[in-house]
């Protein structure tokens, strides 16, 4: 699950953090360059007499762009969790055990262990945002088609290859999507746009979880038998969403080019500068944040990947109900992410938020492991804490790293997150096959405890070194004002 949802979800958070920081600095410096650009755009736009929808400087046009932008990622979000939605069918039709099944997720993660560092570079220096987006969309499309062909030909290795290609496109596409958002909405509705894209990603995942099983059984009754062929056709239908997203990429490229001509605006850039030599300057706090990140996410995404079968096996849920409860984490975090983002911004004290998020997730896993209480409860808790963690954890990086190293720090964080997810996905599958669900849950609990240890250590390290990770928002603002004054004088 490192996948699209994961990564892009997280890179949204990462971008949210960065955008906010930029805004703050802009305010401190007194002249927001984003706002300036906005003014410029507006004035040029007004001079040409176009209808509001076609005029790139008008809100109505931006709304259309926003819509296309949201659907740009839909295909990859939808297809990323195809295996989870069809786990039983994949394992039965392809005759693979759970560990092998989970390799489908691992193969998505592997390319991203490296690509996290280069996605930004490829967009800024090599392809440009427009071509880059189209290329990454193509990768997603082709990857999904290979994945489906693998099922059609009853060749599991081909399915894995498909996931690998899909992974190459998926993560970088999310970076591209964010770059587009910044380029079109910076200084305007940027936070709202991030929020909407985030919600859209979860809509994609949720729709997938709840619809793929139905598609499969429809195909099954149409061709009269279940088998690799049924699976292949279902996945091919899933690939239609990728084609749709590719179409969005093409339209967006055209609109962006057109806006460039009309408004003389530059092509968007990620601004990521990756210098691997920065790694040696990373502070202990940053490494602890990495540790929290890896240990936390490995207890969420591989779990959701195996969740459906778990709910059917342990809680006797029907297939539909199991899919629904498995997607509740995504459904809850769609509306909650903006709320928590706002709260954490206002209150500060990020470490305490992270601590409560990890502890709540731990409680959710303990409930799943040791009780027969309805999983709706535990999964809702997990959804809430997961949203809270994303809002509190990712912006912390910006507090412990100088700005010029931010790109490297975030790249590194996503890279090890992907590495962790790839390895743990396979391990989780193997544990489930040989030791069962209780042991799997214990394993996730242990991972979360690792995360908890890291949070506690971070709290003390930050406290003793006088860092400002756990300051309240008011204190932070005072501090920032002080530094700003010092800078001026």
């Amino acid at each position, binding site marked *: 699950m490192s996948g699209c949802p994961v990564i892009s979800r997280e890179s949204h958070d990462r971008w949210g953090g960065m955008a906010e920081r930029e805004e703050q600095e802009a305010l401190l410096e007194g002249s927001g360059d984003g706002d300036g650009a906005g003014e410029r755009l507006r004035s040029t736009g007004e001079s040409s007499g176009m209808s509001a929808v076609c005029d790139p400087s008008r809100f109505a046009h931006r709304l259309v762009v926003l819509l296309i932008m949201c659907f740009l990622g839909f295909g990859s979000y939808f297809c990323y969790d195809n295996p989870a939605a069809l786990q039983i069918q994949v394992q039965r039709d392809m005759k693979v055990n759970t560990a092998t099944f989970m390799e489908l997720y691992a193969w998505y993660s592997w390319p991203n262990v490296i690509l996290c560092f280069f996605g930004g570079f490829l967009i800024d220096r090599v392809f440009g945002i427009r071509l880059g987006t189209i290329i990454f969309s193509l990768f997603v499309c082709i990857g999904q088609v290979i994945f489906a062909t693998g099922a059609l030909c009853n060749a599991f290795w081909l399915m894995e290859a498909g996931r690998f290609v899909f992974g190459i496109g998926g993560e970088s596409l999310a970076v591209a999507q964010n770059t587009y958002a910044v380029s079109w909405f910076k200084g305007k509705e940027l936070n709202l746009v991030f929020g909407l894209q985030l919600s859209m990603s979860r809509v994609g995942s949720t729709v997938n979880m709840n619809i793929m099983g139905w598609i499969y059984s429809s195909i099954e009754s149409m061709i009269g038998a279940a088998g690799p062929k049924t699976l292949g056709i279902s996945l091919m239908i899933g690939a239609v969403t990728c084609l749709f997203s590719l179409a969005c990429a093409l339209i967006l490229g055209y609109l962006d080019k057109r806006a460039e001509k009309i408004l003389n605006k530059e092509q968007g850039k990620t601004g990521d500068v990756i210098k691997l030599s920065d790694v040696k300057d990373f502070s202990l706090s940053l490494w602890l944040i990495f540790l929290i990140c890896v240990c936390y996410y490995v207890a969420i995404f591989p779990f959701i990947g195996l969740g459906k079968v778990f709910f059917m096996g342990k809680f006797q849920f029907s297939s539909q109900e199991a899919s629904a409860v498995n997607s509740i984490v995504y459904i809850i975090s769609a509306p909650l992410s903006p709320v928590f983002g706002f709260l954490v911004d206002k209150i500060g004290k990020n470490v305490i938020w992270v601590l409560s998020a990890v502890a709540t997730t731990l409680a959710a896993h303990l409930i799943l492991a040791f009780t027969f209480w309805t999983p709706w409860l535990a999964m809702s808790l997990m959804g809430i804490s997961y949203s809270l963690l994303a809002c509190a954890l990712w912006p912390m990086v910006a507090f412990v790293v100088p700005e010029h190293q931010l790109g490297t720090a975030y790249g590194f964080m996503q890279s090890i997150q992907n590495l962790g997810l790839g390895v743990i996905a396979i391990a989780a599958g193997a544990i489930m*096959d040989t030791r069962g669900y209780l042991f799997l849950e214990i394993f996730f609990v242990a991972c979360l405890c690792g995360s908890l240890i890291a949070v506690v250590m971070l709290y003390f390290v930050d406290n003793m070194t006088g860092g400002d990770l756990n300051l309240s928002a008011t204190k932070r603002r005072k501090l920032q004002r002080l530094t700003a004054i010092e800078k001026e004088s």
Partner: protein
Amino acid sequence: MRLARRLLLLCLCQAIACWGDSEPYRREVHLKVVSGPNGSLPNLLHVRAVGHSDAIHYVWGTLGAPTVVLVYSNSNESTLDVNWTKLFSPFPSGAVRIEPAESILYSTAIVFSKIFEYDDGNNTANFSGTSESSFYPAYNLADFVWGDVNKTLNSTALRAEFQGVNASDPAKAFQNGSVSFRVFAFEEGSRDPIAPRLLYTANCSKLEFVITEVAPRGKNSRFALEMVTLERKGRRKSMDSVWSIDDEYTPTIFEMAQLSSELQNDSQVQAFLQWKAVAYGDPSGGRDEAVPCQYHRLQNVSEAWPLPGLAVAFFGGDVREHYSVEALNISFGVADGEFYEKHNYLIWSALLGFGTPPRDSFSTLVIVIMAVALATPIVLLIVGFITMYILKKQRYSDYEPIN
């Protein structure tokens, strides 16, 4: 907090259990085939598990449908006595006895009467809801020809096997295949090394029901086993499920089914048949070959159903006056699951025993991981706060007064 307390309690229980286990209860087990006169083939297998002051007898036989009679005696010198002439006569009543008769505190029997086969075209595995027309003629195990149990007897490993084929085999389903009941006896408690890895004690024996290479009569065939139980009137036979959160030994299976007999006014279990709700489609018992199974409610058996010879020989011709006779079906397969045809193999295991049925508990590994994982952050938090407090205090005391 409650969870923590519960875990602590579990740890304690485990510790006590480990300590208690240091001297596991042992029984001296004798497994032998009771030979009949002049080489006849009675296929009578006697398992005698002798304890300090009692004995559990399991008498297996294939006179009629495969039957096991379980007898609990409070004398460790009780023995099996067979009157062969009577046994082979038309009225075998009283031919098989445990002596001395007054030492018998409890007796029951289980008869494996039929194997159902039905066509599950919709792959719903709904045995009780399947229409009559989808059923193939059931295999009546009383009509089977059973191989010589003496040849499969292993009295050191304490196991034996009854292997049977359909005598009249109109569909030629049994050309290469057979149905077997394997019997295992145990001298002391442990855990079975093969799936579903049942936990047993010296008070148990294990039986495995295996269908090998029997040709299914359709592509979508599923099977079910019918068992008939005898229980003295005034006792209660009940069928229930014990749900456990612990699936460590049988991955993904959380249900333990239990057929037990209790005194009407006493909840103490007397005899039990216990199984995990799973069978396997492959001898290796891997998780991917798991075939979940389902039990159906107990039903009274009609008076017309002929009890097998062994049951009549032990309980007497008037058995129905003192005993209630009930049937229980276990169906193998789950909706959307593989059919029998995939491997042409099915194995289901159960424990038959006397006393309290064994219950799984958390393995030491699970408890250790939980304890370490949950305790470390808490310890770290406490140590951290203390260190911080001391450091702060030191810093303040280092300040010199200004004046």
